């Protein structure tokens, strides 16, 4: 590695949002002509850092040096004009416009106010040729695959003589071949001296393309390392961290009093979502799913709840084949699901605690058989007490509750249906330590009472503490299923994730 002067240097960046410190004294150095990976779990501050860098949010503190000069951008446009271009995860181009229009949108060559189509097409083709792409620039963008669209977005970003290109999870919706094509383009750019800041959740990809990486955790910088000098296990350890000591320990888990097989998935899978997997869940058993973000944890949960359609495989419940096509069908088999994104997929923020809690039960009864008000009040009161929901006001709007209490409302909605299998996708993410411990204790109690729980969490300690058995996922594949005996530790789990189950 040459010790060239960094093209981009961020020093002591801090950013507060109401109630949270998103970034705390973060440094980042990117050298010209390198691919620099920005690593961290969800909520680590990657997106915030990129937004501060590209002028979406102002920084509360710290300095940004671009090519040695201090800069501060009031808008993404200013950042772009200074040479920092960003391509976001979702391609934000106009699918119904042509490739050429997309590349030069807002910068069309004009004469007397009228667009000159010929030079425009020529320039667009030149841009694409620089990326080794040969497309029909007059065709609408929507004709091309996501990978090509992604590259058109890059071509658009480079149209402004970018010196730093920020790629925010560009590969999350691409298949292997498309990723290769993108990497070819990235190497090409690298050779031209463009610095690339690359965000991805796929470890293999990072190790393939990145020269160095900066790791963020909980808004702080863990350090930066040349890719070759940091093993995958150490990387995962640094990303996930071990700051859970403040959580009270649960008592020693008794072995699951498993009585029988509840649910058995056989080669269940969904093209583009999760590779076919087989999984057995027994009554009273907590099955943990471990894996990094994007490894397919959520996809497993959604297939078992009927939120997505499986494209292959089969499921049996109590030995009887079932087809979990819709959430309603899953609910008749007493399966419940608390989704990862509480606000988008779980709660109705404008309705009250009471309404949110009785929603699933009411949906099952249909609108012609209303749940009597006294019964609603009783149920909601019982769960407000049992789960310590605060404020203890059934008529409070859910949007006014804290994250932990919102999670409890969602739990209450499903618990009143007395499910046999409770699927919890990241139930403790983004909530405070106290609520976290309560939810963990609740999971233990429910499984002692005979309920099966599928517990998904990015925090390996939590998964280990609660689960009787841990399924390990990586790159949309269930790669291992490990019994949680004394030999299973977070190190073993990280080792398994890192090795891809090959060892």
């Amino acid at each position, binding site marked *: 590695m040459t010790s060239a002067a960094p093209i981009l240097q961020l020093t002591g960046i*801090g950013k*507060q949002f*109401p109630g949270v*410190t998103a970034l705390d004294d973060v440094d980042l150095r990117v050298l010209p002509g390198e691919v620099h990976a920005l690593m961290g779990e969800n909520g680590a501050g990657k997106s915030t850092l990129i937004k501060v860098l590209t002028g979406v949010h102002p920084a*509360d*503190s710290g300095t940004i040096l671009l090519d040695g000069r201090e800069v501060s951008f009031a808008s993404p446009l200013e950042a772009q004009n200074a040479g920092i271009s960003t391509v976001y995860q979702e391609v934000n181009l106009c699918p119904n416009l042509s490739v050429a229009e997309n590349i030069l949108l807002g910068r069309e060559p004009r004469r007397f106010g009228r667009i000159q189509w010929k030079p425009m097409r020529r320039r667009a083709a030149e841009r694409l040729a620089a990326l080794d792409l040969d497309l029909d620039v007059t065709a609408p963008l929507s004709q091309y695959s996501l990978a090509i669209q992604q590259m058109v977005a890059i071509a658009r970003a480079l149209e402004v003589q970018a010196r730093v290109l920020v790629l925010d999870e560009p590969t999350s919706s691409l298949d292997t071949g498309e990723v290769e094509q993108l990497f070819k383009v990235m190497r090409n750019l690298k050779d031209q001296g463009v610095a690339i800041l690359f965000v991805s959740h796929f470890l293999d990809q990072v190790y393939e393309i990145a020269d160095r990486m900066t790791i963020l955790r909980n808004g702080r910088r863990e350090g930066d390392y040349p890719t070759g000098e940091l093993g995958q296990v150490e990387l995962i350890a640094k990303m996930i961290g071990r700051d859970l000591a403040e959580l009270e320990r649960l008592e020693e888990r008794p072995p699951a009093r498993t009585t029988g097989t509840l649910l058995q998935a056989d080669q269940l899978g969904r093209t583009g979502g999760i590779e076919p997997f087989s999984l057995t869940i027994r009554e009273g058993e907590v099955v943990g799913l471990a894996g990094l973000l994007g490894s397919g944890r959520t996809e497993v949960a959604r297939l078992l*709840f009927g*939120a997505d359609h499986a494209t292959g495989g089969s499921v049996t419940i109590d030995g009887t084949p079932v087809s979990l096509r819709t*959430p*309603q069908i899953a*609910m008749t088999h007493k399966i419940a*699901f608390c*989704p990862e994104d509480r606000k*988008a*997929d*779980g*709660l*109705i*923020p*404008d*309705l009250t605690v009471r*309404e949110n809690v*009785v*929603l*699933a039960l*009411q*949906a*099952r*009864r*249909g*609108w*012609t*058989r*209303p*749940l009597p008000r006294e019964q609603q009040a009783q149920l909601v009161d019982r769960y407000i007490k049992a789960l310590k929901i605060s404020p203890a006001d059934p008529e409070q709007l859910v949007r006014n509750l804290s994250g932990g209490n919102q999670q409890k409302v969602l739990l209450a*909605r499903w618990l009143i249906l007395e499910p046999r299998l409770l699927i919890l996708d990241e139930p403790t993410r983004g909530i405070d330590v106290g609520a976290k411990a309560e939810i963990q204790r609740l999971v233990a109690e429910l499984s002692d009472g005979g309920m099966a729980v599928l517990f998904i969490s990015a925090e390996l300690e939590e998964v280990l503490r609660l689960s009787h058995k841990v399924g390990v996922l990586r790159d949309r594949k269930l790669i291992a299923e490990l019994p949680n005996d004394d030999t299973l530790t977070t190190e073993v789990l990280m080792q398994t994730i890192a090795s891809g189950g090959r060892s």
Partner: protein
Amino acid sequence: MNRRLLWPAVVLALLLLLNLFFTPGFLSIEVKDGHFYGSLIDILRFGAPLVLVSLGMTLVIATGGIDLSVGSVVAISGALACLAISQGTGVLAAVALAVAVALVLGAFNGFLVAVIGIQPIVATLILMVAGRGLAQLITDGQIITVTDAGFKVIGGGYLFMLPFGILLALVVLAATVFLTRRLALGLLIESVGGNAEASRLAGLRSRGILITVYAFAALCAGIAGVMVASNVSSADGNNAGLWIELDAILAVVIGGTLLTGGRFSLGGTVLGALVIQTLTTTIYSIGVPPETTLLFKALVVAAVCLLQSAAFRARAFPRRERPVTQPVQDTTEVAR
């Protein structure tokens, strides 16, 4: 009083006061020929079809949708009822036919939105345009006049000293309140409108709910259509219910239900419909020149909508004692 109902109520009161200023005795109600009589009764009577259509519209808007076809349904149902009566069908059978056809048309709208997945504004635009033509086909391009005394009662008759139309609107209002607030339809509608994906994952059958809601909106429009036709003893495929969908949408918005869906307020909608009807009456009674009536109406509606906006009120009438929400933290003082 519910805060959401406050502003439409204030506007309604102001409009009534304005009328009182121009027309002394505007608020008085007397008994003539054994029934109540007065400007207020007139507003209620002429406003009844709008109230009906607006009730249905409220539920559609609460799901995050919109129904542009209600005006055409008004015309179709009126035309069908008059055609049937003119051909010798009994009044009850004719009305039942008209309302049943309206229900089917509404279910068709719901099918387009919920099953085919067409955006509500486009899906209902189909029937808005086609429905007018259908109404003219039914009336054969003519105005069908009927002279059945029984039919006349629906829009022009009296019961318990009150115009029959007002009572009919009250019955539909009561039925709507019952369906949505006593039964659980309201909760499920607000849930689908508030967050469709979360509702699906909570096991709601949103298709069924959407079809029900669009069918209900058309049912209300069908009843309104019979009422309008009865009131003028004729069916006019061209003009019956013309632009009533826009007045209904306005009534819903003035009533405080958001076009984005979610929470809805039936009381607010009734107030909103009465505001619009009172406004129409006011325009005539205070002698606004005919060529500026639409402009006048638009100005008042704009004012009401601005008053409804909390952001606007905060700017227009700033309160002095705004509490400081967040104590300044040490970290922010260090910054820069």
